[in-house]
């Protein structure tokens, strides 16, 4: 039972993390190859605070705040660059983050932070908390999507210049997406820190940034439900493959390639295809 709870908590955190990137990349169309940095900022903030005695739930707000603050700074810098230049700039952010953390004694350097207190509400309590966080963030992003903010994002993600000519204040909307997205990642990080209870710079690197982007794209860019399914599936994948442990990265890599090659619209596209076929019959 304990094992299933761990797996489920990991899935919930992955779903939250992917939903947060979906706001930036899916809704607003700003590709980020460095989203794990904000997971890390949330995790480190929350871990440091809870080690100094702050109750876990209280650390969520500063974890989100810190991630969003740095997200805002990165967002402002990102306004200067576009498309692939933006993708690589955000990739730079994740390398800067891990590089800086590695050299800071106070953040545990290469070794990281261990002995993060276990949540006093237990493993099941942490799972419930994670699910609540996912639900709250999910409802918020659904609201965003349906509001005029989502309407404006649709135009920005398709064609920024046209969006400008329609009277949309593009930079403000982009910064909004960055703040909402990075705050979500910060929250996921706070949960993650207390789930694994040991964090180091290697947990928040380029590879993690790529895997979360893969979740968003395999899910179907911008599709909330597709992204949830993809995140749940891809994060649990290593568990399914325990038996073929030696080949799990091979399978993962081929799966990413296969998904893009044969279902480039992602899970969202597949579902739509299935339902359309049903409807026709």
């Amino acid at each position, binding site marked *: 039972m304990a094992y299933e709870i761990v797996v489920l908590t990991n899935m919930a955190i992955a779903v939250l993390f992917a939903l947060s990137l979906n706001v930036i990349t899916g809704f607003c169309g700003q590709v980020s190859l460095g989203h794990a940095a904000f997971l890390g900022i949330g995790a480190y903030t929350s871990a440091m605070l809870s080690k100094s005695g702050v109750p876990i739930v209280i650390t969520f707000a500063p974890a989100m705040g810190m991630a969003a603050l740095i997200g805002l700074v990165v967002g402002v810098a990102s306004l200067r660059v576009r498309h*692939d230049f933006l993708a690589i700039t955000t990739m730079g952010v994740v390398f800067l983050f891990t590089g800086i953390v590695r050299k800071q004694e106070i953040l545990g350097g290469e070794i990281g932070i261990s002995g993060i207190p276990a949540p006093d509400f237990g493993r099941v309590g942490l799972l419930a908390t994670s699910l609540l966080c996912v639900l709250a963030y999910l409802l918020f992003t659904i609201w965003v999507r349906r509001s005029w903010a989502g309407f404006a994002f649709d135009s920005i993600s398709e064609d920024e210049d046209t969006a400008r000519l329609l009277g949309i204040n593009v930079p403000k909307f982009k910064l909004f997406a960055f703040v909402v997205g990075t705050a979500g990642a910060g929250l996921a990080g706070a949960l993650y820190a207390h789930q694994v209870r040991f964090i180091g710079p290697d947990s928040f690197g380029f590879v993690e940034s790529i895997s979360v982007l893969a979740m968003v794209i*395999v899910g179907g860019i911008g599709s909330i439900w597709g992204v949830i399914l993809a995140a749940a599936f891809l994060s649990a994948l290593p568990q399914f493959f325990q038996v073929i442990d030696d*080949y799990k990265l*091979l399978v993962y*890599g081929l799966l*990413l390639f296969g998904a893009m090659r044969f279902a*480039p619209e992602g899970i969202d596209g597949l579902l739509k295809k299935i339902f359309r076929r049903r409807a026709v019959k």
Partner: protein
Amino acid sequence: MLFFDLCIQGVIQGAIYALIALGLTLVYGLLRILHVAHAALFTLGGYIGVIVTNGSGSFLLALLTSMLIVGVVGMSSYTIIYKPLLNRTPLIALIASIGIFIASEELFRIFFGAYGLSYTNPPLQGQIEILSGVSLSHARILVVVLAIGLLSGVGWLAINTRVGIAARATVIDPEMAASSGINVEMIRFGSFFIGSAFAGAAGVMVSLLNNLVEPTMGAVPSYKALAIIVLGGLGSVRGALVASLALGIIESFGTIYVGHLLDRDSIAFAFLIMVLMVRPQGLLARG
């Protein structure tokens, strides 16, 4: 002599970066795709270099075989990975490319073992004293000579041959080139061949410098090369070469002077971000 040493370090690293980045920037120019799997070709080059050298005893043969095979594999990567995805958003191709890269690292490990391979008799280890107190191995000199030779060879072809001119036109504006009768498909195959072969050569040279090839040797080039072509101004070949050299030298000095604050990769990316904030289009614009 620290200053001089660091310069040499930087130039050698820059030469390796340049060999890798050329293919990546050509692919970007032609397809607007970030070709991450390119780094797997670099690793493949290293493996072929070690295996053929150990088997035949000839390093030259190994280098040529490696470039040829990697070039051909590179061409097939165009057909297999990118061609079916060309009319999709480039993100799709990027993720597909990353998938192939991850899978290939595993394939190298499964076929050749997790600990990598070494040269039984490492060639070109003799030292030359180029200044009093500063000596370099033949291998390190060869890296620079090879890079200059190969890159200027391609430069000469691009300027002086019909095919080269057509290729440059295609990199600058693929649609225009296609409408003026250039066989864009041939240019793509050619560019993938040359770019991949050069990455293969870089793989062989790195395997020689470290006397080691391992499954993960492509990890750093996979993202560093992206940084280089962005720094150079995406799609600009000249920019990529300048950026390669600049990054090589900055990393080599940076690790000594600010190494206590930032590691090698973050020095490179800090430099990248600073440049992009001043010049969002990269060091040299396209063209």
